[in-house]
């Protein structure tokens, strides 16, 4: 496997804690994501993985701690600031725009890069049309890459689950993100679909050089794909390292086999 060519830190999470009322979802979690790597976050159900992603892209605001992204440190930010900064995301339960076609969903991912105002769009002439076509070209590249040409005009609600996940990945890629967060990209897929999705994830990382942080339950996939793995359990980070190191870690084995604490 190709190793990331740089050890520059893209995202640094320092001492983040998050609580909902009395429930502590995250407790003093720190880790980093290096530029160009595939970073996995694993852990049993309820370990706080999705909460961690929600904190990173600004949907939840942590009670303590700070996040440094591209050298800028802040305690919290708004979701659209995160997206503007170059963080894209897919969701555990597919969060596509169900009333729109696959093409429109992916085009919506280009919003941040489209500049033409209301009046030009209304006339759909000159610069507005040119912009629309230019972005259509970029989106068609993504559609080719994900091999979903045949379904580009189908409303996503009609697509099978596996394809919906692929369209959602396409929408995230359309943002041309620096950091791509994938929340269980392979949940509920059969073996073949998992292989396809793994191939796309590795390709995205290779071709576009996109840094990827992913949550996944399938250990075989995680150990194959990722360069480094962080393990959460009950909101606490219990291990961090290469897949091999993590596999041997006694704490991780206990957490997964459920040894009495």
């Amino acid at each position: 496997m190709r190793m990331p060519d740089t050890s520059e830190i893209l995202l640094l999470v320092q001492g983040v804690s998050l609580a909902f009322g009395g429930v502590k979802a995250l407790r003093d979690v720190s880790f980093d994501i290096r530029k160009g790597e595939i970073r996995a976050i694993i852990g049993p159900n309820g370990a706080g993985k999705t909460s961690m992603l929600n904190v990173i892209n600004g949907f939840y605001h942590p009670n303590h701690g700070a996040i440094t992204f591209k050298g800028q440190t802040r305690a919290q930010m708004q979701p659209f600031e995160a997206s503007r900064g170059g963080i894209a995301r897919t969701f555990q339960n597919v969060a596509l725009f169900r009333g729109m076609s696959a093409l429109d969903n992916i085009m919506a991912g280009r919003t941040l890069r489209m500049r033409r105002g209301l009046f030009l769009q209304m006339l759909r002439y000159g610069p507005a049309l040119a912009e629309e076509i230019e972005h259509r070209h970029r989106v068609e590249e993504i559609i080719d890459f994900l091999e979903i040409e045949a379904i580009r005009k189908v409303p996503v609600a009609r697509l099978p689950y596996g394809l919906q996940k692929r369209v959602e990945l396409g929408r995230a890629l359309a943002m041309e993100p620096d950091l791509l967060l994938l929340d269980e990209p392979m949940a509920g897929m059969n073996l073949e679909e998992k292989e396809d999705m793994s191939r796309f994830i590795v390709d995205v990382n290779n071709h576009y050089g996109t840094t990827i942080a992913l949550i996944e339950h399938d250990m075989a996939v995680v150990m194959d794909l990722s360069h480094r793995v962080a393990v959460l359990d009950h909101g606490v980070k219990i291990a961090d390292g290469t897949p091999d190191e993590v596999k041997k870690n006694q704490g991780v084995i206990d957490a997964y086999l459920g040894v009495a604490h």
Partner: protein
Amino acid sequence: MLYREAGQFKTTYAEDMAIFPIRQDRIALGILLGIAFVGVPLLATFHIWPFNSEYLLWAILLPFLILALAAIGVNVLVGYCGQISLGSGAFMAIGAYSAYKLGTGVHIPLAWFGFAISIPPLPVLPSILLGGLMAAIAGILFGIPSLRIKGLYLAVATLAAQFFFDWVFLRVPWFTNYAPSGSVNAPRLDFFGLAVNTPIERYLLCLIFITVFAVLAKNLVRGNLGRQWMAIRDMDIAAELIGIRPLYAKLTAFAVSSFIIGVAGALWAFVYLGSWEPLAFSIDRSLQLLFMVIIGGLGSIMGSFVGAAFILILPILLNLIPTQLGVPLSTETITHLEFIIFGSLICYLLIKEPHGFARLISIGKEKLRLWPFPY
């Protein structure tokens, strides 16, 4: 076999993104526009059936065009952006009364500052468009709560707009130029020196308005802004996480929608009613517009036309058919039947086909494309 896209190859994305990518659709639209712009006026001029009286033009086509325009406005907000509104009537009223004030001259005495603001009467066209602009501003103001509240809560916020403006135009005499009866008359309709008086002229005027607005609205909803609206409608959280600002998306939807509704309100008052009272824009009007959009199709410009046509034609059919069958119904019974049919239809469509008649038509087209094969 007539309706096929096989053999029509598109070599550029621009072609693929045309409003009607299929040739047969373009031909049908051309014929329809030809009938609307040339056929109807010709028939009406020579009083040829069905235009042997002015009834069809006055009582059906004119209100159809204006209400379809308003329905497009409602559809932008409700159908595309997913923000429910029960206050469309109020925004029609704002358009109508603003246009009226601008058309008759505005005088705001500012006694405290010792001077007055006076604007001389404006020509009709700028009055109508500025009326739409005023409605857009009001739309933005009443859209601000939508940033914090959703769905049903917003329904109550728009009801506030409805009842508040009902009251304003009824009770603040400044808006009606102190007319003792509360009823006001539209200024003379004069467009660039051309007087618009006869039903045919009025019809053509509204036809031009709705054609232009329908194209502009269609362009918006299939462009970047339209995608932002629909994204907010379908899943606002995900929309925000891909960089769509809810503030911008929602307020533009409110502004565009209210502008179109405001212009429709001004046309309704100036061109159709001629003289009117605030009652013309009550909550009944708001609900009627909402029904047009649901029946015609949420999120479909064409659906707005279908819905408006249906809502206008149903009462006429209810009147006509029993009379033809020899069992004429009383006006009251017709109104009640209308209520029941509209209500049932709304429920039926929401259950079976949330995208209304427009969706049924496009399913029909899909079937036709494959005919005589099932798939």
